[in-house]
């Protein structure tokens, strides 16, 4: 089994508006963590991974008519998918292309902005449906003329990793030939205040896997992959393959991860089994690594349970982007594919001291290394744990 071919990708995040910009930030160690300027919040002391383009600017880039009603999550997604389309050399997506989008926030930005306006101001009522994440997906689908299999996965911070997994399964089962998978989430007051109420936001730049980590920085991003069946590839370059995947529920707590990292352990095990590889074949792990006390410890324990003393090179790229929630899995899938293509490991920034409990040290400097197989982890609220394995083509 070769795995499902990835034949296109597109991305926007706090470290760049396209693949080239993002790659250049990753190799030069330039993070995208700043104080909020676009998001209108009182919490100006909380660093975020914000994309410094307003909704209006994004709309102009996308040539949208003035009176549109796209949510910010949709705008970011459209920006990313447009890049994917452009680079795929397709004029437009073929009619049978499926679309599976992961999102946690959806269109909450529009609901929080207009909650008190709906009663009196008729023009804002077009956003009433935005509470429902599928509305955002539908608007994106409309923009690209995707009319067939279109759905939304919303499993908090593993949403887009799950979308990638489902896309791979749809192709494997023969139900689809071609599918756009990934996810998008924008910064909102709702999520910033929510994570703040959970006391897991850091007032400094996030420090994944560090003993003195203080919490996460919220981010925003969109990233999508094009997956295609073998008979659609026809000599097109294959960027990498979705070789393995697995989802498991921690079944421990609504938000916290278990001490033994059971969900993570099972998700990684499933992905390795599906890929039909040995754990020792994994060259690099793009860890979930949110930089909360709880996640990083639980994830370390799971890694040690899987790999024993030989934990492969790993890093959390959330130190660059912040935690873009539902989009994170797809963002890190793109980073994993960049690692594979370029034989490079992007560093875990802001790391100083290893965790006393597990003593694991991430890769802290940009590194050249032969990379064939990458494991990418995404864990979310509700105990939702997903692991994906990407591999070099052939």
């Amino acid at each position, binding site marked *: 089994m070769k795995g499902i071919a990835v034949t296109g990708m597109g991305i926007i995040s706090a470290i760049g508006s396209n693949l080239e910009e993002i790659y250049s930030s990753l190799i030069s160690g330039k993070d995208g963590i700043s104080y909020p300027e676009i998001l209108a*919040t*009182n*919490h100006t002391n909380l660093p975020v991974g914000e994309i410094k383009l307003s909704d209006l600017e994004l709309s102009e880039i996308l040539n949208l008519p003035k009176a549109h009603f796209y949510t910010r999550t949709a705008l970011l997604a459209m920006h990313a998918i447009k890049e994917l389309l452009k680079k795929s050399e397709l004029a437009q997506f073929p009619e049978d292309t499926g679309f599976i989008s992961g999102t*946690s926030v959806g269109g*909450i930005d529009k*609901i*929080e902005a207009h*909650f008190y306006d*709906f009663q009196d101001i008729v023009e804002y*009522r*077009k956003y*009433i449906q935005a*509470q*429902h*994440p*599928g*509305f955002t997906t*539908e608007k994106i689908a*409309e923009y690209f003329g*995707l*009319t*067939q*299999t*279109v*759905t*939304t*996965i*919303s*499993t*908090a911070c593993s949403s887009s990793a*799950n979308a990638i997994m*489902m896309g791979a*399964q*749809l192709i*494997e*089962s023969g*139900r689809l030939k071609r599918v756009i998978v990934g996810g998008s989430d924008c910064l909102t*007051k*709702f999520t910033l*205040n*929510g994570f*703040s*109420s*959970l006391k897991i936001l850091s007032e400094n730049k996030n420090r994944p896997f560090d003993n003195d980590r203080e919490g996460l920085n919220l981010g925003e991003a969109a990233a999508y992959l094009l997956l295609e069946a073998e008979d659609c590839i026809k000599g097109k370059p294959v960027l990498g393959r979705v070789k393995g995947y697995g*989802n*498991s*529920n*921690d*079944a*421990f*707590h*609504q*938000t916290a991860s278990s001490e033994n990292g059971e*969900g993570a352990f*099972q998700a990684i095990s499933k992905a390795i089994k599906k890929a039909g590889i040995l754990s020792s074949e994994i060259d690099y792990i793009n860890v979930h690594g949110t930089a909360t006390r709880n996640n990083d410890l639980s994830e370390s324990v799971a890694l040690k349970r899987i790999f024993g003393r030989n934990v492969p090179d790993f890093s959390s790229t959330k130190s660059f982007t912040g935690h873009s929630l539902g989009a994170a899995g797809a963002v890190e899938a793109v980073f994993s594919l960049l690692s594979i293509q370029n034989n490079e490991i992007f560093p875990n920034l802001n790391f100083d001291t290893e965790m006393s409990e597990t003593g694991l040290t991430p890769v802290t400097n940009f590194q050249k290394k032969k990379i064939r197989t990458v494991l990418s982890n995404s864990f*979310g*609220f*509700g*105990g*939702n744990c997903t692991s994906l394995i990407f591999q070099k083509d052939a």
Partner: protein
Amino acid sequence: MRKLYINGISSISPQNEAIFKGSTPQQYENNILPAQAQDYKSLLQPMMLRRMSKGVKMGLFCAKKALDEAEVKIPDVILVGTGQGCMEDTEKFLSNMLESEEGLLSPTSFIQSTHNTVAGQIALDLNCNGHNMTFTQNSVSFESALIDALLQQNDQNIKNILVGGVDETSNELTGFQRLDGQIKKEGHRNLELYSSQTSGTIISEAAAFFALGSEKLKHSYAEFKDVEIINSLDEKILESRIENFLKRNDLLVSQIDAVILGKNGDIRFDQYYDQLQNGMFSATCQLGYKHLVGDNNAISSYAFWLASKILKEKKIPRIFKLNALNCARPRNILIYNQYLGRNHGLILLQDL
């Protein structure tokens, strides 16, 4: 290909499950229909129950009942379709945040506002480590979960799949749907939904869950055959899409014994159903359910419940009928639903 049998079912809706046995239907007039009260304490622990919104309660309660009927303790997979998700908690956190202008906020409602709260709580309650997914795609949320059920059963190790649909209502957020034309402006009697000449529909809260298994049991209900979702489609090609779907399952239109339609009394979009009623299914027994249980993003799970009951008990209660045709021995049932002319879903069930 392995088969998927419906081995346990449970529904909570504005109607009692006994409506299938001919009990008098509940009547509503204000266009937002509440689910029937349940003895939640009989199955859910009080310490868990205290934080649960209606949707979580309904979902977990139905999940446990369906699994119980199928004699499954822990399923291998948990799949939930919920369009609006946990609206009550979303609304609670949102309004507290706006009123306090981002002041000091209590975290519980934020935690519970994520769309996968129901699926997560079921996993937590059952201590189930299996594949756990939540789909939120308007009127095909439940259908999307069914697609995943078909994908997961490709894995030979998967024996039992829990799949369900749930949607709750909340004061403000559901109320807004009166403003944008989703809910009918004038109060409308639910039982007279189909004679409505106005736009909009009646909205409800409901849940229905199913234990699907790869093994047939003595008391299995039916076989779940296939599902398809189509995001947008011209009315003109609806019939040919349905024909293709049936063909894929080696069936002709004439072999469909009953068609369950998601007609919701919205004159702007009911023509999709009218066309089927007057066209390809004019000689088929036609059923409706939204005059009883209203509409919401996961309500096709109620149609799935209804089809399961019909195929097991081999009878069709009159209250669901949209035409006068009878069907002595229902074998194949097709479910078709859409909302606002988008997100079309097709589901096929077959008797055993």
